[in-house]
């Protein structure tokens, strides 16, 4: 099985001199190219920092990040941007969208940068995606004129536009009610079964229970891991139980 992302002994610290603290303290992770993983851990344990490190958005102090056989610590800002734009997708807790643009424009923004000539095709693809996540009637709306759940779906469409190899989601359901959260998870599962790796950060055992591997973080380290069968089936409740049990065990 090919690894899409390999993090090897990542150390990331903030602050200087005696103030310096290792926020990531020798973290190693590997994610398969069709895997659906999640990261859990207390607030401040370094989950977001890990995601920023693995996606090349933030530099690291030592260790190594390899994405799709490319060593991210060895390449420059331009190529990093290129990789993020064309090979990764991101979904954040807060809707990270530009106020100036309407929903459709926000969705096509990263893909149209290199491909202006195909604007029609790109818009078409965006509409297909929007239909799939159930927001097709919102394309002309301003981002302040839709609900949080709808915005989050638009964010997923944006993440999918370039057919990425992996989707990073930092608490993509954190601001949503459980109904919306489940719908988002349905969409993400479907994307995953179609062959895209997904890595989620979450506080929610119900969300984590739908992934096939859960990494638990504390104080900048991965302290434990829980593997579940890939297909969720009807066992969702027992999966949730397993996750909560694990959380209790390591005291999160």
């Amino acid at each position: 099985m090919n690894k899409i992302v390999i993090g090897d002994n990542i150390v990331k610290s903030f602050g200087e001199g005696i103030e310096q603290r290792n926020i990531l303290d020798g973290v190693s992770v590997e994610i398969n190219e069709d895997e659906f993983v999640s990261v859990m851990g207390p607030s401040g344990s370094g989950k977001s920092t890990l995601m920023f490190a693995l996606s090349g958005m933030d530099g690291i102090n030592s260790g190594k990040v390899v994405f799709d056989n490319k060593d991210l610590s060895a390449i420059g800002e331009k190529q990093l941007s290129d990789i993020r734009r064309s090979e990764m997708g991101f979904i954040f807790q807060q809707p990270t969208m530009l106020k100036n643009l309407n929903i459709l424009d926000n969705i096509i923004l990263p893909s149209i940068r290199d491909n202006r000539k195909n604007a029609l095709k790109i818009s078409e693809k965006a509409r297909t995606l929007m239909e799939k996540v159930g927001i097709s009637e919102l394309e002309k709306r301003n981002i302040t004129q839709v609900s949080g759940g709808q915005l989050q779906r638009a964010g997923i469409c944006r993440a999918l536009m370039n057919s990425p190899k992996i989707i990073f989601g930092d608490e993509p359901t954190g601001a949503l009610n459980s109904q919306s959260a489940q719908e988002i998870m349905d969409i993400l599962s479907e994307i995953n079964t179609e062959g895209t790796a997904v890595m989620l950060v979450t506080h929610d055992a119900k969300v984590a229970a739908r992934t096939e591997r859960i990494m638990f973080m504390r104080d900048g380290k991965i302290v434990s891991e829980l593997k579940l069968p890939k297909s969720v089936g009807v066992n969702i409740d027992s999966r949730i139980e397993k996750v909560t049990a694990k959380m209790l065990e390591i005291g999160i």
Partner: protein
Amino acid sequence: MYNRIIRNDILKSKAITLTTVIFVAAAAMLVSLAAILVINLTGALDTLMEKAETPHFMQMHSGEIDRHRLTAFAEQNNNVEEYQVVEFLGMDGSQIILGDNSLTNSVQDNGFSIQSEKFDYLLDLNGDIINISDGEIYVPVAYMKDNTAELGDTAVISGKEFTIAGFLRDSTMNSSLSASKRFLVSSNDFVEIKDLGNIEYLIEFRLKDYSKIGEFETAYASAGLEANGPTVTYTLFKTMNAISDGLMIAVILLVSVLVIAIAFMSIRFTLLAKIEDDYREIGVMKAIGLRLSDIKKIYLAKYAVIAAAGSILGFILSLMFQGVLLENIRVYMGESENAPLAIGLGIIGILLVFLAIVAYVNLVLKRFRKISAAEAIRFGTSKEKKVGAKRFTLSSNRVFSTNIFLGIKDVLARKRLYGTMLLVLVISAFIIIVPQNLYNTISSKSFIQYMGIGSYDLRIQTSDHEKTDDIVQTIESDSDVSKYAVLTTKTFKVKTSNESGENMKVELGDHSAFPIEYSVGRAPVRDDEIALSAINADEMSKKVGDVITLINEGKEKELKVSGIYSDVTNGGKTAKAVFTDNSANVMWTIVCVELSDKSFVDSKVLGYSSEFDFAKTSDINEFVSQTLGSTINSVEIASYAAVAVALVITTLVTLLFMKMLVAKDRYSIAVMKAFGFTNSDIKVQYVSRSVFVLIVGIILGTLLANTVGEIFAGALISSFGASTFNFAVNPLSAYLVSPLMMISMVLIATVIGIARAGQIKISENIKE
């Protein structure tokens, strides 16, 4: 008590605070300079004219003179306080050699006088009445200014040697607009050289009551006294003396108004941005029941500190720069007695700037009241109305690259914010273009058409009408001459309602050969038509189509006014007609000549000068530049200064705006970076924003400059006689070089201003 907050705030935004201080300083400096210059100019001018006892009325006259009649008139007229006739010994420039320089090329009527007895004194550079000894000569200060003569040099006048003992200020002829220049020699020396030139008379009066000058003028004219030459009054002397510095002050005032507007705009921009940033905090403070006036005080105090620092800096700068700008006044008019008053007025001007800023900040802060605590806490921003540009979408955009699209879209979406920047750029473009166009216009050859002079290559002027035919014959047979016209100036009496006639100089001849600009109507073509200069038409309150009656040797001649034109020569009171007349005395004749090949002008001037030594031949360009030279110079300096000021403003404002935008847009920048936009993508977006705003700014600025600016410049020009006015635009500099300069400065400032954008960390701005 606010000290700490203010200090921290200022330290946190050093660049922005500094820029604001610089704008305030520039505005304060200009206001103070204008005040200082106005006071010094009026003061120095008054001092000069008081000490010299400038005549209230002066009639220049060439030809026979009847002193008894004049004395009788002066004694009879009860408004006359003093009267004198000054002899002015006109001499050809080639006969005057100062040091190593001869005045051959001078278009001025150079001449010699002795110190006056009763008034109209010639003063030395200390402002004292000159006491001259034999063998000494005093030279008009203009020749010191242009380095023609130096103290102690030997002057050779028609072969007789003098020592240049000093330079003189002449309250009647100082100005370059005055055609004559007086040299001062002792009475003994005057007698010696008297036969070497032509004597002209300056018939001068001081009045008991100057307000009755109009009556006096009519009385003089109706008495039929000597009048073969221009008439000048005290007011006109004053205007001529003040014109070049006055023009400079006007330009400074214009620029200072604009810079103040810009200072206000920057304050508004930074203040609005700051309020937006602090929106949530302000809302929270309001919510927990803090008094708004307390928060307001903090902002107000900050800007009071900035305004005070800027004003003080500006005042110091104005004291430093005043020397350069006062130089002309010092040389031509001397020190002003009002110098301390000038500083005082400068301080008052600066206080006004300071108070205006504080009041303005207070006004902008009125917004505080509108901030809703609930809204501020819920949304963190004010719910700005989204306007327009809804159709301008990325999905339908086919024209611009994505980055350029995003730049333009941002501008369209935040019109208020960019509107401020746009206004500044419009003003900058205006400041760059208007003085430049003004300079270009008054230095262009066609500008003389506004002076009442047609567009030809050289002019030959003579008062010796018996020899006019010689000149005409020579010109006629000269194959290099492509066109010529003979214009003869005669005096006629105008019949007015109150019986007493007034004299008017009428230029007769073919006025279609070298046409001038008419502000209303057209040139006279029929025998019964006449065109009036603007000042004449004004004084006689005549419009086009009105009829005036000239009296000549008892006979009346009715003429219809065909047009009105601007004239800055001969005191601005002239007229043009085409009828033939053999009766009246010719005052002077001008032969206007156009050459088929302009490169001959210099050699022709030399040739005709020696051939017609009784006449005055001058290159028309030289004539214009010597007449308007110092005015043109002042405007040129002002226009360069304006370009420099505007470019500095453009750069600083762009820098300021870009820095603020990047600070405000950290989040959007982080988002775009997260989704794979590179730093250079971001750079292109910001450059597109500023270039887009700049292009709109340049277009609007240029349009405004050519409409409003033209009207404004026209008002300035009309102050010295010209009434219609169109900019002569140098397209290369106005439409290419100036915009290019602005674009390069904006590009540089944008790139420097957004340097921080590259350092914005995604992880620090997208917190999860």
